[in-house]
């Protein structure tokens, strides 16, 4: 990929303001399994929040609740979404979700994927956004021909073309190789700085969280276990001492909590010689 240098001109200078979120007494359980337990949280407008935690701690669930992909068992989320309504007819039209897999429609070209849910003359805007993620030359190809990183760029463009007030990122870079990840992180950071939306990133990767977020939240036992503001200047230097110290602090804090369920012991395997024929 030769697309590291991208010009970040605003495609339409709109005073976009990030959504402000307040979660009140949020609980979520699946059958008997309580994932979130009376969680309270306020996220400021325009903030970049990273949510970290062990597998199955409920961080993705929190994100899906925020996107209204699922409903909380208890409590409510209040969204103060400023100024605008997006084209399209869904009530949470100011919120866009980026999934772990790109989820592009394979039967639509890259450009048509970006235009999904848009009405009117969207082509020019879509092309501008595509240029921002550095894939303008791929506008007319099928998603099947793109690499994993390129697909996530298209998914990012598809989210941004709606001028979201709130962008939710569910480990969108989890499946990418290390170099593509860093490239994508820089891209997301730049786009966030230029568009001033609120961003919530769920990630396994503490380094990624520190590189991007204003604020790192750790979820454990269904609650916020750690709420840490990151005051490093941007763009953040991964090699710097402050970065490394913070990373090790957060990592140790995440690891403090033992993994949720003890793994069952691996059953003893019988070797061929131990087997007897049943006759």
């Amino acid at each position: 990929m030769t697309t590291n240098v991208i010009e970040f001109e605003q495609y339409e200078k709109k005073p976009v303001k990030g959504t402000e979120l307040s979660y009140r007494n949020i609980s979520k359980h699946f059958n008997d399994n309580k994932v979130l337990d009376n969680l309270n949280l306020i996220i400021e407008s325009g903030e970049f929040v990273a949510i970290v935690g062990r597998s199955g701690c409920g961080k993705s669930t929190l994100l899906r609740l925020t996107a209204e992909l699922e409903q909380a068992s208890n409590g409510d989320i209040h969204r103060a979404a400023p100024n605008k309504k997006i084209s399209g007819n869904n009530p949470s039209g100011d919120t866009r979700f980026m999934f772990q897999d790109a989820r592009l429609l394979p039967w639509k070209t890259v450009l048509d994927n970006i235009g999904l849910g848009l009405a009117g003359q969207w082509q020019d805007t879509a092309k501008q956004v595509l240029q921002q993620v550095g894939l303008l030359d791929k506008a007319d190809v099928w998603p099947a021909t793109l690499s994993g990183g390129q697909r996530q760029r298209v998914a990012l463009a598809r989210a941004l073309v709606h001028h979201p007030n709130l962008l939710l990122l569910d480990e969108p870079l989890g499946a990418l190789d290390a170099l593509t990840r860093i490239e994508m992180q820089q891209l997301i950071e730049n786009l966030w700085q230029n568009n001033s939306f609120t961003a919530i990133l769920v990630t396994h990767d503490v380094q990624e969280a520190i590189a991007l977020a204003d604020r790192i939240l750790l979820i454990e036992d269904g609650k916020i276990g750690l709420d840490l503001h990151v005051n490093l200047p941007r763009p953040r230097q991964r090699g710097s001492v402050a970065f490394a110290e913070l990373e090790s602090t957060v990592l140790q804090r995440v690891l403090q909590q033992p993994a949720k369920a003890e793994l069952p012991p691996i059953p003893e395997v019988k070797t061929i010689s131990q087997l007897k024929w049943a006759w």
Partner: protein
Amino acid sequence: MSTASTLKKNLLPWLVPIAIFSVWQLAAQVGWLSVRIMPAPSAVLLAGWKLALSGELFEHVRISFLRAISGFAIGGGAGILLGLLNGISRKAETLLDTTLQMIRNIPPLATIPLVILWFGIDEAAKLFLVSFGVFFPLYINTYHGIRSVDPALLEMARSYGLRGWPLYRDVILPGAMPSILVGVRFGLGFMWVLLIVAEHVSSSTGIGYMTMNAREFLQTDVVVLGILLYALLGKVADVAARHLECWWLRWNPAYQPTAA
């Protein structure tokens, strides 16, 4: 790829048919095959040529083709519509699917006596038989196609505000299309089988009539001609369906023409 190897690739599938026809021609000419059992390919061609000259051949082919296509349109159309309905609506599925699955297990040919009683031996009976046979492959594959649309894509599309018709147009129908087209190809196969049987039950036009009539007069060349015509029409239908697949599923790497 060089022109020589392209030529080779294009000719190779025809090698075996050509060999069979050569041996057949030889056997007939030398006299190993009695004309009453199997006429020589040349005799079949000649019979075809004569019938073509008189215009009879094209009339029979036209009528058979029309029967096949209208039966396919009626049965296939109904199959796709019901498949869509049951794929989309749980209520409709609960109400209708069990009934349809029961009817599906009736071999279409077993209904012939009843069909003759109901519709007589006219066009209606033939249309019914073809439609009946084509309906189920299209119904099942459409239904299955809609049910197997990737839920992750549906969730994504809904979160992007797609509801109602745009959701069907952009996500559900294209997602079900590979399966629907499989149904179309199955349906085309059934279409010819049922048409042949229907035309042999009774008719006064069509390829089936032509061969039945020829049998009366021991014109084996015309009989073989009819059989070959069915094979040819079947092949044409299959090729058409393949082209449809290549066009509609061109986004799918599995259907993209290999770079040759």
